[in-house]
């Protein structure tokens, strides 16, 4: 089973040179730590910045410079600042190439639920609905099962959904899977030490296994 850091590390391998990328809060934020320095990429912050840099030193802290998680940040060379309408224009307009975000549930047809647990957590969707409705490539970082062992890869989402038919790829602590446009989780890779049978038994939705499934490489 992968740690959160290993999930982030595996997702970082999906990043391609020249991409503009939006990273969600949680595991997706960690992906930035593992992106190869050989790649020229730009990180978008939905509150109005292209070119997120590392966290600041104590001396560099600027309250007027935060990311979407409200953390203090710095800017890389060549950064640009803009307003929230412009920020979502570039998101909805398809100019952001890759969106990486967390999920509570994903369904076999690519629906995602990650914003609301009725009666329990009603904090709001922030920018998640705009992102999932628009990005050409959405990768989800999540745990395969809930704490009580229930599958979070389902036939259909039980929680209020954030977007329909939008997820392309999922990296969990057990596996890398892709969504079949016809419906189903196509198993692509398994975590070290995790068997295909383990993954099948922890996936409630339809799972598609074609031939030998390799172990992940990092």
């Amino acid at each position, binding site marked *: 089973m992968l740690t959160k850091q290993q999930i982030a590390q595996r997702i970082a391998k999906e990043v391609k040179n020249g991409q503009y990328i939006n990273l969600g809060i949680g595991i997706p934020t960690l992906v930035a730590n593992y992106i190869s320095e050989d790649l020229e990429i730009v990180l978008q912050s*939905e509150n*109005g910045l292209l070119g997120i840099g590392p*966290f600041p030193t104590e001396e560099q*802290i600027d*309250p007027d410079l*935060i990311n979407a998680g409200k953390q203090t940040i710095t800017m890389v060379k060549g950064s640009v600042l803009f*307003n929230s309408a412009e920020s979502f224009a570039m998101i909805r307009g398809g100019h952001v190439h890759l969106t990486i975000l967390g999920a509570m549930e994903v369904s076999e047809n690519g629906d995602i639920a990650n914003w609301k647990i009725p009666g329990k957590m009603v904090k709001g969707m922030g*920018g998640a609905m705009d992102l999932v409705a628009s990005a050409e490539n959405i990768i989800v970082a999540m745990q395969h099962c809930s704490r009580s062992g229930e599958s979070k890869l389902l036939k259909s989402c039980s929680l209020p*959904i954030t977007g329909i038919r939008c997820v392309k790829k999922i990296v969990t602590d057990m596996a890398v899977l892709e969504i079949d446009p016809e419906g189903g989780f196509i198993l692509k890779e398994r975590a070290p030490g995790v068997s295909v049978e383990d993954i099948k038994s922890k996936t409630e939705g339809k799972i598609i296994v074609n031939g030998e499934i390799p172990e992940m490489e990092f």
Partner: protein
Amino acid sequence: MINKTVKDANEAVRDIASGAFLMMGGFGLSGIPENCISALLHRDIKDLTIVSNNAGVDDFGIGLLLQKRMVKKMISSYVGENAEFERQLLSGELEVDLIPQGTLAERVRAGGAGIPAFFTPAGVGTEVAEGKEIREFDGKLYLMERWLRSDFSLVKAWKGDTAGNLIFKGTARNFNPMMAAAGKITIAEVEELVPAGELDPNQIHTPGIYVQRIFEGKNYEKRIEQRTVRS
């Protein structure tokens, strides 16, 4: 040049009455109109509707207005950092409209730009789409959203001039420019107010035509929600 200057925050918010529909700039606690919020706390008003991406924290920003039960309804995208907010919501004292962040930004932008409605893909197939017109364009589904316009927009900028022209700094810009344009009365508080003519016209983000009142704020706290440093 028309002079938009008022003396201070108290004078700027003097005629905001109970039941007013307000917009407040800011993302988290960054770029919020701190001085105007403080001045509102001294007014005996209630039943405010506030459009703001977030709702502050318990003891700062819009959270202070919530503590004093001055707010009837919030229109926001994410409200997760505020226990008093949650209490009032669950007890039914407070109404909340949760809106996708890009839709919120565009509804405000549309309000200022005279566009009464538009179609967006955000929220199609979700509970956000309930009761809204859905249309297909070029093979993809979109839902219709309406503009938002305010009685008063309270915005915060870095620098401004007496003509109401504004320059923002960093990610404190966020919703402020669209809200400035969407207000019947827009009140701008700035860290530094200069005479008209001193700002470089090439560098101005919000033209003064959108601003009715401007003043130089004081004692900015600029509280940081998630102070994060390099390890």
